[in-house]
Protein backbone atom coordinates (compact mmCIF):
# COMPACT_ATOMS: atom_id res chain seq x y z
CA UNK A 1 0.00 0.00 0.00
CA UNK A 2 1.48 3.36 -0.89
CA UNK A 3 1.83 6.10 1.68
CA UNK A 4 -0.90 8.32 0.24
CA UNK A 5 -3.40 5.49 0.54
CA UNK A 6 -2.15 4.77 4.07
CA UNK A 7 -2.68 8.45 4.89
CA UNK A 8 -6.23 8.39 3.53
CA UNK A 9 -7.19 5.23 5.44
CA UNK A 10 -5.50 6.28 8.69
CA UNK A 11 -6.93 9.80 8.37
CA UNK A 12 -10.43 8.40 7.78
CA UNK A 13 -10.27 6.07 10.81
CA UNK A 14 -8.62 8.52 13.21
CA UNK A 15 -10.81 11.38 12.00
CA UNK A 16 -13.95 9.33 12.59
CA UNK A 17 -12.74 8.28 16.04
CA UNK A 18 -11.82 11.86 16.90
CA UNK A 19 -15.25 13.02 15.76
CA UNK A 20 -16.90 10.26 17.80
CA UNK A 21 -15.47 11.74 20.99
CA UNK A 22 -18.12 14.46 20.59
CA UNK A 23 -20.47 11.85 22.09
CA UNK A 24 -19.07 12.84 25.50
CA UNK A 25 -20.69 16.26 25.05
CA UNK A 26 -24.49 15.82 25.38
CA UNK A 27 -25.30 19.05 23.52
CA UNK A 28 -23.70 17.65 20.32
CA UNK A 29 -25.63 14.35 20.23
CA UNK A 30 -28.03 15.63 17.59
CA UNK A 31 -25.09 16.61 15.32
CA UNK A 32 -22.87 13.59 15.99
CA UNK A 33 -23.16 12.07 12.50
CA UNK A 34 -22.31 15.38 10.85
CA UNK A 35 -19.36 15.94 13.18
CA UNK A 36 -18.01 12.45 12.44
CA UNK A 37 -18.33 12.93 8.68
CA UNK A 38 -16.68 16.35 8.83
CA UNK A 39 -13.90 15.08 11.10
CA UNK A 40 -13.31 12.07 8.81
CA UNK A 41 -12.99 14.35 5.77
CA UNK A 42 -10.57 16.57 7.68
CA UNK A 43 -8.57 13.49 8.70
CA UNK A 44 -8.47 12.25 5.11
CA UNK A 45 -7.22 15.60 3.81
CA UNK A 46 -4.50 15.68 6.49
CA UNK A 47 -3.70 12.00 5.69
CA UNK A 48 -3.50 12.73 1.97
CA UNK A 49 -1.07 15.62 2.49
CA UNK A 50 0.97 13.74 5.12
CA UNK A 51 1.15 10.69 2.85
CA UNK A 52 2.29 12.85 -0.04
CA UNK A 53 4.97 14.37 2.20
CA UNK A 54 6.02 10.92 3.48
CA UNK A 55 6.52 9.76 -0.11
CA UNK A 56 8.94 12.60 -0.72
CA UNK A 57 10.72 12.83 2.62
CA UNK A 58 11.49 9.86 4.86
CA UNK A 59 12.05 11.39 8.24
CA UNK A 60 10.01 10.53 11.33
CA UNK A 61 10.77 13.87 12.91
CA UNK A 62 9.62 15.90 9.91
CA UNK A 63 6.73 13.56 9.23
CA UNK A 64 5.29 14.17 12.70
CA UNK A 65 5.95 17.91 12.52
CA UNK A 66 4.32 18.30 9.10
CA UNK A 67 1.37 16.06 10.06
CA UNK A 68 0.83 18.10 13.23
CA UNK A 69 1.03 21.37 11.23
CA UNK A 70 -1.52 20.15 8.66
CA UNK A 71 -3.74 18.89 11.50
CA UNK A 72 -3.53 22.26 13.22
CA UNK A 73 -4.20 24.19 10.01
CA UNK A 74 -7.31 22.21 9.02
CA UNK A 75 -8.60 22.17 12.60
CA UNK A 76 -8.26 25.96 12.59
CA UNK A 77 -10.26 26.20 9.35
CA UNK A 78 -12.99 23.96 10.77
CA UNK A 79 -13.09 25.91 14.05
CA UNK A 80 -13.21 29.23 12.15
CA UNK A 81 -16.43 28.25 10.33
CA UNK A 82 -17.97 26.48 13.32
CA UNK A 83 -19.82 28.32 16.07
CA UNK A 84 -20.97 26.93 19.42
CA UNK A 85 -23.01 29.19 21.68
CA UNK A 86 -21.88 32.19 19.67
CA UNK A 87 -18.13 31.53 19.83
CA UNK A 88 -15.58 29.63 17.74
CA UNK A 89 -14.36 26.46 19.52
CA UNK A 90 -10.72 26.95 18.55
CA UNK A 91 -9.23 25.22 21.59
CA UNK A 92 -11.64 22.25 21.52
CA UNK A 93 -10.97 21.49 17.85
CA UNK A 94 -7.39 22.63 17.31
CA UNK A 95 -5.73 20.87 20.26
CA UNK A 96 -6.94 17.36 19.38
CA UNK A 97 -6.54 18.15 15.66
CA UNK A 98 -2.89 18.97 16.27
CA UNK A 99 -2.22 15.64 18.03
CA UNK A 100 -4.27 13.60 15.53
CA UNK A 101 -2.25 15.23 12.73
CA UNK A 102 0.97 14.24 14.52
CA UNK A 103 -0.28 10.63 14.79
CA UNK A 104 -1.22 10.58 11.09
CA UNK A 105 2.23 11.98 10.25
CA UNK A 106 3.85 9.27 12.35
CA UNK A 107 1.83 6.47 10.77
CA UNK A 108 2.41 7.63 7.20
CA UNK A 109 6.15 7.58 7.90
CA UNK A 110 6.03 4.16 9.56
CA UNK A 111 3.68 2.39 7.15
CA UNK A 112 3.34 2.02 3.41
CA UNK A 113 5.80 1.90 0.57
CA UNK A 114 7.63 5.10 -0.28
CA UNK A 115 7.76 6.50 -3.79
CA UNK A 116 10.79 8.34 -5.04
CA UNK A 117 12.20 8.93 -1.61
CA UNK A 118 14.50 11.70 -0.57
CA UNK A 119 16.38 10.92 2.62
CA UNK A 120 16.13 13.84 5.00
CA UNK A 121 18.58 14.53 7.75
CA UNK A 122 17.33 12.46 10.70
Amino acid at each position, binding site marked *: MNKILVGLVVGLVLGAMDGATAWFYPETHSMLAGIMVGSSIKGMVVGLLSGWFARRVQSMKWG*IAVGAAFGLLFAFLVAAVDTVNGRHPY*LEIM*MPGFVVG*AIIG*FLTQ*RMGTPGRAREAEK
Partner: protein
Amino acid sequence: MDVSDSVLRHLRHVAALPDLTSTRYELESEIGRGGMGVVYAARDRQLGRRVALKILDSAMAGEARIMAQLEHPAIVPIYEAGALPDDRVFYAMKLVTGARLDHFLGGSPSLAERLRVIRRVGEALAFAHTRGVIHRDLKPQNVMVGEFGEVYVMDWGVDAVAGTPAFRAPDARLDRRSDIYALGALLRFMLPASAPLALSAIAGKAMQADPCARYPDAPALLADIERFAVGLAVEAWSEPWWHRLRRFGARNALLLWLLAAYAGVRFLLFFLRYL
Protein backbone atom coordinates in the same frame (compact mmCIF):
# COMPACT_ATOMS: atom_id res chain seq x y z
CA MET B 1 73.46 -18.79 31.98
CA ASP B 2 76.83 -18.30 30.28
CA VAL B 3 77.70 -16.71 26.96
CA SER B 4 77.61 -19.96 25.03
CA ASP B 5 73.98 -20.51 26.11
CA SER B 6 72.85 -17.15 24.80
CA VAL B 7 74.80 -17.64 21.56
CA LEU B 8 73.21 -21.07 21.16
CA ARG B 9 69.76 -19.65 21.78
CA HIS B 10 70.37 -16.90 19.25
CA LEU B 11 71.57 -19.40 16.66
CA ARG B 12 68.51 -21.56 17.25
CA HIS B 13 66.28 -18.54 16.82
CA VAL B 14 68.00 -17.45 13.62
CA ALA B 15 67.91 -20.99 12.24
CA ALA B 16 64.15 -21.16 12.85
CA LEU B 17 63.54 -17.97 10.89
CA PRO B 18 62.29 -18.52 7.36
CA ASP B 19 64.72 -17.98 4.53
CA LEU B 20 63.01 -15.35 2.40
CA THR B 21 65.93 -14.61 0.07
CA SER B 22 64.11 -16.12 -2.89
CA THR B 23 61.04 -13.99 -2.25
CA ARG B 24 60.24 -10.28 -2.46
CA TYR B 25 59.67 -10.09 1.29
CA GLU B 26 61.86 -8.89 4.11
CA LEU B 27 61.13 -10.21 7.59
CA GLU B 28 60.29 -7.65 10.28
CA SER B 29 58.96 -9.42 13.38
CA GLU B 30 56.93 -12.35 14.57
CA ILE B 31 53.32 -11.41 15.27
CA GLY B 32 51.66 -14.72 16.03
CA ARG B 33 52.32 -18.40 16.45
CA GLY B 34 49.95 -21.32 16.45
CA GLY B 35 49.93 -25.06 16.00
CA MET B 36 49.71 -24.70 12.25
CA GLY B 37 52.31 -22.07 11.56
CA VAL B 38 53.92 -18.78 12.38
CA VAL B 39 52.83 -15.34 11.20
CA TYR B 40 55.37 -12.58 10.65
CA ALA B 41 55.10 -8.95 9.77
CA ALA B 42 57.15 -8.44 6.63
CA ARG B 43 57.86 -5.79 4.03
CA ASP B 44 57.11 -6.28 0.38
CA ARG B 45 60.23 -4.79 -1.21
CA GLN B 46 58.64 -4.61 -4.65
CA LEU B 47 55.53 -2.68 -3.65
CA GLY B 48 56.95 -1.02 -0.55
CA ARG B 49 54.15 -2.10 1.74
CA ARG B 50 53.87 -4.13 4.90
CA VAL B 51 52.22 -7.53 4.74
CA ALA B 52 51.53 -10.45 7.02
CA LEU B 53 53.45 -13.54 6.04
CA LYS B 54 52.28 -16.91 7.22
CA ILE B 55 54.78 -19.74 7.14
CA LEU B 56 53.36 -23.25 7.17
CA ASP B 57 54.48 -26.81 6.89
CA SER B 58 54.28 -28.01 3.28
CA ALA B 59 51.40 -30.32 4.25
CA MET B 60 49.31 -27.24 4.91
CA ALA B 61 49.73 -25.70 1.46
CA GLY B 62 45.99 -26.04 0.84
CA GLU B 63 45.19 -23.30 3.34
CA ALA B 64 46.37 -20.55 0.99
CA ARG B 65 44.33 -22.01 -1.84
CA ILE B 66 41.26 -22.11 0.39
CA MET B 67 41.69 -18.50 1.46
CA ALA B 68 42.42 -17.36 -2.10
CA GLN B 69 38.94 -18.56 -3.11
CA LEU B 70 37.34 -16.31 -0.55
CA GLU B 71 37.18 -12.74 -1.77
CA HIS B 72 35.02 -11.01 0.79
CA PRO B 73 35.33 -7.73 2.74
CA ALA B 74 35.49 -9.67 6.03
CA ILE B 75 38.09 -12.18 4.88
CA VAL B 76 41.76 -11.22 4.80
CA PRO B 77 42.86 -11.07 1.16
CA ILE B 78 45.75 -13.24 -0.01
CA TYR B 79 48.38 -11.47 -2.12
CA GLU B 80 50.71 -14.29 -3.01
CA ALA B 81 51.65 -17.84 -2.08
CA GLY B 82 54.89 -19.72 -2.62
CA ALA B 83 57.43 -22.21 -1.30
CA LEU B 84 60.61 -21.65 0.70
CA PRO B 85 63.96 -23.42 0.13
CA ASP B 86 63.33 -25.57 3.22
CA ASP B 87 60.08 -26.89 1.65
CA ARG B 88 57.86 -24.93 3.95
CA VAL B 89 55.18 -22.85 2.24
CA PHE B 90 54.23 -19.25 2.79
CA TYR B 91 51.51 -16.91 1.83
CA ALA B 92 51.42 -13.15 2.02
CA MET B 93 48.24 -11.43 3.03
CA LYS B 94 46.99 -8.05 4.12
CA LEU B 95 48.50 -6.97 7.41
CA VAL B 96 45.54 -6.11 9.58
CA THR B 97 46.24 -3.57 12.27
CA GLY B 98 43.77 -3.60 15.11
CA ALA B 99 42.82 -5.89 17.95
CA ARG B 100 41.98 -9.54 18.22
CA LEU B 101 38.34 -10.00 19.12
CA ASP B 102 39.09 -11.11 22.69
CA HIS B 103 41.23 -8.01 23.21
CA PHE B 104 38.65 -5.81 21.47
CA LEU B 105 36.01 -6.95 23.96
CA GLY B 106 38.30 -5.83 26.78
CA GLY B 107 37.43 -2.26 25.74
CA SER B 108 33.76 -2.88 26.70
CA PRO B 109 32.19 -2.04 23.34
CA SER B 110 28.44 -1.40 23.25
CA LEU B 111 26.00 -4.21 22.55
CA ALA B 112 25.26 -2.69 19.14
CA GLU B 113 28.95 -2.74 18.30
CA ARG B 114 29.28 -6.36 19.44
CA LEU B 115 26.32 -7.31 17.25
CA ARG B 116 27.86 -5.45 14.30
CA VAL B 117 31.01 -7.52 14.66
CA ILE B 118 29.18 -10.84 14.96
CA ARG B 119 27.11 -9.93 11.89
CA ARG B 120 30.27 -9.32 9.86
CA VAL B 121 31.70 -12.64 11.04
CA GLY B 122 28.43 -14.39 10.17
CA GLU B 123 28.38 -12.81 6.71
CA ALA B 124 31.93 -14.00 6.05
CA LEU B 125 30.95 -17.48 7.19
CA ALA B 126 27.82 -17.47 5.03
CA PHE B 127 29.88 -16.41 2.02
CA ALA B 128 32.51 -19.08 2.63
CA HIS B 129 29.81 -21.74 2.95
CA THR B 130 28.43 -20.81 -0.45
CA ARG B 131 31.95 -21.47 -1.80
CA GLY B 132 32.00 -24.87 -0.11
CA VAL B 133 34.54 -23.77 2.51
CA ILE B 134 34.05 -24.27 6.23
CA HIS B 135 36.16 -22.51 8.81
CA ARG B 136 36.57 -25.36 11.33
CA ASP B 137 38.25 -23.21 13.96
CA LEU B 138 36.19 -20.07 14.50
CA LYS B 139 37.20 -18.48 17.80
CA PRO B 140 37.94 -14.98 19.14
CA GLN B 141 41.64 -15.35 18.36
CA ASN B 142 40.78 -15.77 14.67
CA VAL B 143 38.75 -12.59 14.37
CA MET B 144 40.41 -9.21 14.05
CA VAL B 145 38.71 -5.84 14.48
CA GLY B 146 40.63 -3.19 12.58
CA GLU B 147 41.28 0.32 13.81
CA PHE B 148 38.49 1.66 11.60
CA GLY B 149 36.01 -0.98 12.76
CA GLU B 150 36.58 -3.37 9.88
CA VAL B 151 36.22 -7.04 10.81
CA TYR B 152 38.32 -9.88 9.42
CA VAL B 153 37.92 -13.60 9.92
CA MET B 154 41.25 -15.36 9.62
CA ASP B 155 42.85 -18.80 9.63
CA TRP B 156 40.33 -20.58 7.49
CA GLY B 157 40.55 -24.20 8.34
CA VAL B 158 42.09 -27.13 6.65
CA ASP B 159 41.45 -30.81 7.30
CA ALA B 160 44.12 -31.09 9.96
CA VAL B 161 42.47 -28.48 12.16
CA ALA B 162 39.92 -29.86 14.58
CA GLY B 163 38.84 -26.66 16.31
CA THR B 164 39.30 -25.17 19.76
CA PRO B 165 37.45 -27.03 22.54
CA ALA B 166 35.25 -24.19 23.82
CA PHE B 167 34.12 -23.33 20.29
CA ARG B 168 34.16 -26.78 18.73
CA ALA B 169 30.91 -28.56 17.99
CA PRO B 170 30.56 -32.03 19.50
CA ASP B 171 29.99 -33.38 16.00
CA ALA B 172 31.79 -36.48 14.77
CA ARG B 173 32.22 -34.89 11.35
CA LEU B 174 32.74 -31.17 10.95
CA ASP B 175 30.51 -29.42 8.42
CA ARG B 176 28.63 -26.12 7.99
CA ARG B 177 26.56 -26.74 11.09
CA SER B 178 29.77 -27.12 13.10
CA ASP B 179 30.62 -23.57 12.00
CA ILE B 180 27.12 -22.49 13.10
CA TYR B 181 27.90 -23.99 16.52
CA ALA B 182 31.16 -22.04 16.66
CA LEU B 183 29.37 -18.85 15.58
CA GLY B 184 26.89 -19.38 18.42
CA ALA B 185 29.75 -19.95 20.84
CA LEU B 186 31.40 -16.80 19.56
CA LEU B 187 28.15 -14.86 20.05
CA ARG B 188 27.84 -16.18 23.61
CA PHE B 189 31.48 -15.23 24.26
CA MET B 190 30.83 -11.72 22.98
CA LEU B 191 27.69 -11.04 24.98
CA PRO B 192 28.04 -8.97 28.13
CA ALA B 193 26.74 -10.38 31.43
CA SER B 194 23.62 -8.22 31.14
CA ALA B 195 22.79 -9.39 27.62
CA PRO B 196 19.12 -9.69 26.69
CA LEU B 197 17.68 -13.20 27.03
CA ALA B 198 16.75 -13.25 23.36
CA LEU B 199 20.40 -13.02 22.34
CA SER B 200 21.43 -15.74 24.78
CA ALA B 201 18.66 -17.89 23.29
CA ILE B 202 20.03 -17.30 19.78
CA ALA B 203 23.47 -18.43 20.93
CA GLY B 204 21.89 -21.41 22.69
CA LYS B 205 19.99 -22.50 19.60
CA ALA B 206 23.15 -22.26 17.48
CA MET B 207 24.99 -24.39 20.07
CA GLN B 208 22.52 -27.27 20.28
CA ALA B 209 24.28 -30.61 20.55
CA ASP B 210 22.07 -32.00 17.80
CA PRO B 211 23.16 -30.34 14.53
CA CYS B 212 19.60 -30.54 13.17
CA ALA B 213 18.34 -28.44 16.09
CA ARG B 214 20.72 -25.60 15.21
CA TYR B 215 20.08 -22.89 12.64
CA PRO B 216 20.28 -24.45 9.18
CA ASP B 217 22.80 -21.87 7.99
CA ALA B 218 24.55 -18.64 8.94
CA PRO B 219 21.97 -16.34 7.24
CA ALA B 220 19.22 -17.90 9.41
CA LEU B 221 21.19 -17.07 12.54
CA LEU B 222 21.91 -13.56 11.27
CA ALA B 223 18.22 -13.07 10.46
CA ASP B 224 17.36 -13.89 14.07
CA ILE B 225 19.94 -11.36 15.30
CA GLU B 226 18.44 -8.82 12.90
CA ARG B 227 14.96 -9.54 14.26
CA PHE B 228 16.28 -8.82 17.74
CA ALA B 229 17.95 -5.62 16.54
CA VAL B 230 14.71 -4.20 15.11
CA GLY B 231 12.65 -5.20 18.15
CA LEU B 232 10.89 -8.27 16.71
CA ALA B 233 10.46 -11.68 18.35
CA VAL B 234 13.34 -14.06 17.70
CA GLU B 235 12.85 -17.56 16.38
CA ALA B 236 15.06 -19.06 19.08
CA TRP B 237 12.96 -17.99 22.04
CA SER B 238 9.31 -18.28 22.86
CA GLU B 239 9.05 -15.21 25.04
CA PRO B 240 6.57 -14.76 27.91
CA TRP B 241 3.61 -12.39 27.38
CA TRP B 242 4.98 -9.68 29.65
CA HIS B 243 8.20 -9.64 27.69
CA ARG B 244 6.24 -9.39 24.44
CA LEU B 245 4.31 -6.47 25.88
CA ARG B 246 7.49 -4.69 26.96
CA ARG B 247 9.04 -5.26 23.53
CA PHE B 248 5.91 -3.87 21.88
CA GLY B 249 6.09 -0.83 24.16
CA ALA B 250 9.76 -0.27 23.38
CA ARG B 251 9.16 -0.67 19.65
CA ASN B 252 6.17 1.65 19.56
CA ALA B 253 7.14 4.08 22.28
CA LEU B 254 6.64 7.15 20.11
CA LEU B 255 3.18 6.06 18.96
CA LEU B 256 2.17 5.28 22.55
CA TRP B 257 3.36 8.73 23.62
CA LEU B 258 1.30 10.36 20.88
CA LEU B 259 -1.79 8.37 21.84
CA ALA B 260 -1.23 9.28 25.48
CA ALA B 261 -0.93 12.94 24.44
CA TYR B 262 -4.25 12.67 22.59
CA ALA B 263 -5.94 11.07 25.60
CA GLY B 264 -4.42 13.79 27.82
CA VAL B 265 -5.75 16.56 25.57
CA ARG B 266 -9.22 15.01 25.52
CA PHE B 267 -9.31 14.63 29.31
CA LEU B 268 -8.08 18.19 29.75
CA LEU B 269 -10.75 19.60 27.43
CA PHE B 270 -13.44 17.49 29.05
CA PHE B 271 -12.63 18.72 32.56
CA LEU B 272 -12.03 22.32 31.47
CA ARG B 273 -15.74 22.53 30.58
CA TYR B 274 -16.72 22.11 34.21
CA LEU B 275 -14.24 24.55 35.72
